[in-house]
């Protein structure tokens, strides 16, 4: 089995299990129809609704790989959405609106990255500043109301379809692929992992960890900007109070479900976006199953708990060993060879 597939196998299996579980409560979960030039069905809703968290998870993966965390992405979404809605409703047109939103996201990342890399503030504290202040900034832009607009071009990013697929889904898939290529086809991935594992040794080996850290937070801001654009285009309005609210926590959860360590180092973007899809499949499944809404959070928490326990360092290797034993591979061989050197 290729290394890349083996890395995301637990997440793929988990996603499959969640889909099967939801299907048990809502049999039409996997049904997909083609209507009016687009695919429709619950599973299509999952990949569309999961777009903001998946995008945030792409950036969050990189930040967490450097042993950091970015709590500000939800607030950044609100700021970027507000910027885009302001530009559209002021009549600047599509391209300037996208440019303003993305610039705001990059600026938010630059702010966070500078606090972390230059001033040495702990990431959780540094990004907490923007997390709490960011919504205020967004409200200043929207003047405290839901800033609505009518612009079909911009709304396309929320509800349009490309080759029958929802535009938000296409955007997050593209973002995941592009960022994966960016870090794996260049040396960025290695360098990011290296500073995440041992920043001091990496600096002594000549890695410019300061610039790299800032870049990683800017990438997170960039992803948050796209998430904000999608969320704003989706409801054709910028809701500074609610856009991206608490999504930073879902994004962190997606990264964790993706098997990435919060202590930094080795990372997989593919596994993180699969984690985001797992979370969204649970969310959508709960809505479809029709339980009273009081149970939503309890069910979600219970499922996430089960997933994390199954993936936990003390349980997962045991299960993997058991699986290997069933396939007939002698367990002790590799271990023995390594011990004998």
């Amino acid at each position, binding site marked *: 089995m290729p290394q890349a597939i083996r890395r995301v196998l637990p997440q793929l299996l988990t996603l499959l299990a969640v889909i099967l579980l939801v299907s048990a409560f809502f049999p039409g979960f996997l049904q997909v129809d083609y209507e009016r030039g687009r695919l*429709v069905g619950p599973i299509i*809703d999952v990949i569309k609704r999961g777009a903001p968290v998946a995008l945030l998870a792409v950036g969050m993966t990189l930040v967490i790989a450097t042993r950091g965390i970015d709590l500000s992405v939800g607030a950044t979404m609100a700021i970027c959405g507000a910027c885009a809605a302001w530009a559209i409703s002021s009549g600047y047109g599509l391209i300037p609106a996208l440019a303003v939103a993305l610039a705001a996201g990059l600026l938010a990342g630059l702010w966070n990255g500078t606090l972390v890399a230059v001033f040495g503030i702990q990431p959780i504290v540094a990004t907490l500043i923007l997390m709490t202040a960011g919504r205020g900034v967004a409200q200043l832009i929207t003047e405290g109301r839901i800033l609505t607009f009518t612009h079909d071009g911009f709304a396309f990013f929320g509800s349009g379809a490309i080759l029958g697929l929802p535009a938000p889904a296409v955007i997050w898939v593209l973002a995941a692929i592009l960022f994966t290529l960016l870090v794996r086809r260049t040396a960025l991935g290695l360098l990011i992992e290296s500073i995440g594992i041992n920043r001091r040794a990496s600096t002594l080996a000549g890695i410019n960890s300061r610039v790299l850290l800032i870049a990683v937070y800017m990438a997170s801001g960039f992803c948050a900007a796209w998430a904000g654009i999608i969320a704003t285009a*989706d*409801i054709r309005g910028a809701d500074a*109070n*609610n856009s991206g609210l608490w999504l930073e926590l879902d994004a962190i959860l997606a990264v964790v479900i993706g098997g990435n360590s919060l202590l930094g180092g080795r990372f997989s973007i593919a596994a993180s976006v699969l984690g985001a899809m797992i979370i969204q499949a649970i969310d959508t499944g709960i*809505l479809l199953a029709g339980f009273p809404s*009081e149970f939503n959070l309890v069910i979600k928490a219970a499922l996430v708990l089960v997933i994390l326990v199954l993936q936990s360092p003390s349980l997962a290797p045991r299960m993997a060993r058991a699986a290997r034993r069933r396939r007939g591979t002698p367990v002790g061989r590799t271990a023995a060879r390594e011990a004998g050197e």
Partner: protein
Amino acid sequence: MIKTLLATAAAVSLGAAAQAQTIGFSQIGSESGWRAAETTLTRQQAEERGIDLRFSDAQQRQENQIAAIRSFIAQGVDAILLAPVVATGWDSVLEEAQEAEIPVVLLDRQVDSSEDLYLTAVGSDLVHEGEVAGQWLVDTVGDDECRVVELQGTTGSSPAIDRKTGFENAIEGHDNIEIVRSQTGDFTRTGGKEVMESFLQAEGGGGEICALYAHNDDMAIGAIQAMKEAGVNPGEDVLVVSIDAVPDIFQAMANGDANATVELTPNMAGPAFDALEAYMEDGTEPEKFIQTESKLYTQDDDPMAEYEARKDLGY
């Protein structure tokens, strides 16, 4: 010294004869468009009546509100409007106002203090709002079968509980109307849209849904978008009724996408000022709770005009 005292006494008697003069208003903050509209309307009402309004924004903190009330008392205002951020902890500051003989009117929310400590409370009845919405649906569908989906507010919040109760009260006894799905959309547009998408999936693409009841307009607006994207015609295929009467829902009604909304009026100050005026003039004690009207608006009420009237209130 004596001259000053005399002048003050004269001013007081003159003022009392003319109008209520200086009124302090301790507002919670500006967390929602509705509250911004309430602030705007209070200022407007004060201006119309020639009242000098002292405004204080508490930014969601009770200690700021208490400080503001104390400063109003120190300034010797004639009355205080208070939109309390929480229900408890007001006794001592309300007693201080009482000792200074300054009447206090509560806006929009209640407190857990003794009724003697404030003049009256102005607010809407959340259950009643739900009943108005439900009654409209009962009247509209007549004897036809109607499967209703409901977008609840934030789980456990009092508007969500009361508006649900009111709606259920109104449709009770009308067995042709049934709530088939009910989920929380957290009072947000995104939430309304996402949950409506799942309702449409679960209810055969929307063909089996007769009406949508949303606990606020924002969720209804999100749901309308979800229906449009799914090829369902909101306002015709699915009746849409919601609560709040924010400007955007009037636009939707003008477009034929929404059918009815129940107003939660941000004009709490109007009735408050009326009550204060009567009280100051001849000491008329108002009721302890003044319920604002929960007015129903439909597509026949010139929604475009209503939109124009509301859009600059700060929603």
